[in-house]
């Protein structure tokens, strides 16, 4: 499998507190990779470094054969906007916008005209079983609906990598399962690589492979490697 995104022995500290102490991880094109680990182990920091949101203190992050960490913020921002998608634990929808406008947001930020962006956004509503909710604002959506809107927003620009940080963490088990079924189906259909941070084994079981982060290091003896 072609490596799509990779971190090589990265380190990251916040003040004097080390979060990552030489973490190495890679995901193939179209692979769904779960990052597990206890609270405070560094798994979210690892996701943010992979996504170019945080710059590691040491070593390298590669995406599609190019160094990501050494690019300036503007260049990394372009990569994030055009080729990455994001889903977070609490959806983080913009409350003033409708669900459809929220989904269209990445397209609007990429410079696509409003009408076209809204049209493309609309196509995700039936796919994610959100028909009829296009004009609702986030306060008028259930947790599961809001998270599916967030998923649509994460997928609308057909990202090469979708970063999902505890995407079901705020949902009950049935709603969480619904989101994961839709997330994995959409990712597989588009060949999107998914980096999924979760502390729930049942959610990690949707991935092709999992790694565990402990004390800022990625455990090598997990998932398909050890199975």
């Amino acid at each position, binding site marked *: 499998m072609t490596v799509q995104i990779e971190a090589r022995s990265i380190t990251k500290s916040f003040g004097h507190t080390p979060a990552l102490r030489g973490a190495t991880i890679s995901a193939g094109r179209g692979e769904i990779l779960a990052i597990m680990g*206890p609270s405070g182990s560094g798994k979210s920091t690892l996701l943010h470094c992979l996504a170019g949101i945080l710059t590691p203190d040491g070593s390298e992050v590669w995406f599609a054969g190019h160094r990501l960490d050494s690019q300036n913020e503007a260049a990394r921002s372009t990569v994030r906007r055009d080729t990455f998608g994001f889903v977070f634990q609490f959806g983080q929808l913009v409350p003033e916008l409708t669900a459809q406008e929220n989904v269209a947001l990445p397209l609007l930020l990429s410079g696509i005209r409003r009408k076209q962006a809204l049209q493309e956004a609309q196509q995700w509503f039936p796919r994610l079983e959100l028909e009829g909710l296009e004009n609702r604002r986030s306060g008028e959506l259930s947790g599961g609906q809001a998270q599916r809107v967030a998923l649509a927003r994460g997928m609308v620009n057909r990202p090469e990598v979708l970063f999902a940080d505890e995407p079901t963490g705020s949902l009950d088990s049935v709603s969480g399962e619904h989101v994961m*079924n839709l997330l994995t189906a959409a990712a597989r259909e588009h060949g999107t690589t998914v980096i999924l941070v979760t502390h*729930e*084994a*049942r959610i*990690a*079981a*949707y*991935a*092709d492979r*999992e790694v*565990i982060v*402990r004390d800022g290091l990625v*455990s090598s*003896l*997990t*998932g*398909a*490697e*050890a*199975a």
Partner: protein
Amino acid sequence: MSVPLTLLGLLEREPSHGYDLKRDYDAYFGRGKPLPYGQVYATLSRLARDGMAIAGAAEPGEGPERKRYSITPVGISEVGSWLAEPAAPEPHLQTVLFAKVVLSLMLDRPAAGYLDKQRAAHLQRMRELTALKQEGNLVDIMLADHGLYHLEADLRWIDHTVARLDALRKLVQK
């Protein structure tokens, strides 16, 4: 799981032949472990002997015994009691996992490595069950969920144990 009471429960729906009971048992509860015909008929005979079912007259036809069985009021009462009674919670205190961890620590063998491998094996099984859920009907999904939640409980225990290995080592190496 009690095969006699489950068959008796299936019989409460309507009088049935052994064949019908086996078919429904295998569909809902067998899951890769179909009930042998011999066990079905032996069980039905015992239920009849114990007054919980009544066998009708033998019907003409090929194949194994063709009798239609009906449940009796005693059988209905037995099924009702069984369904209302909570199953004994099984704490699984002496599992193989636990024994392996403690022995590994006692013998100064790599308990963390074993737990990592066990974790990977559990997650592999969880992936298989999750994949089954994508294709299965609601009965398959519910059975897979039951397995998934139990495996998840084991995994939580594994994570908890990994975090406490040093303390446990000190205790068992005394």
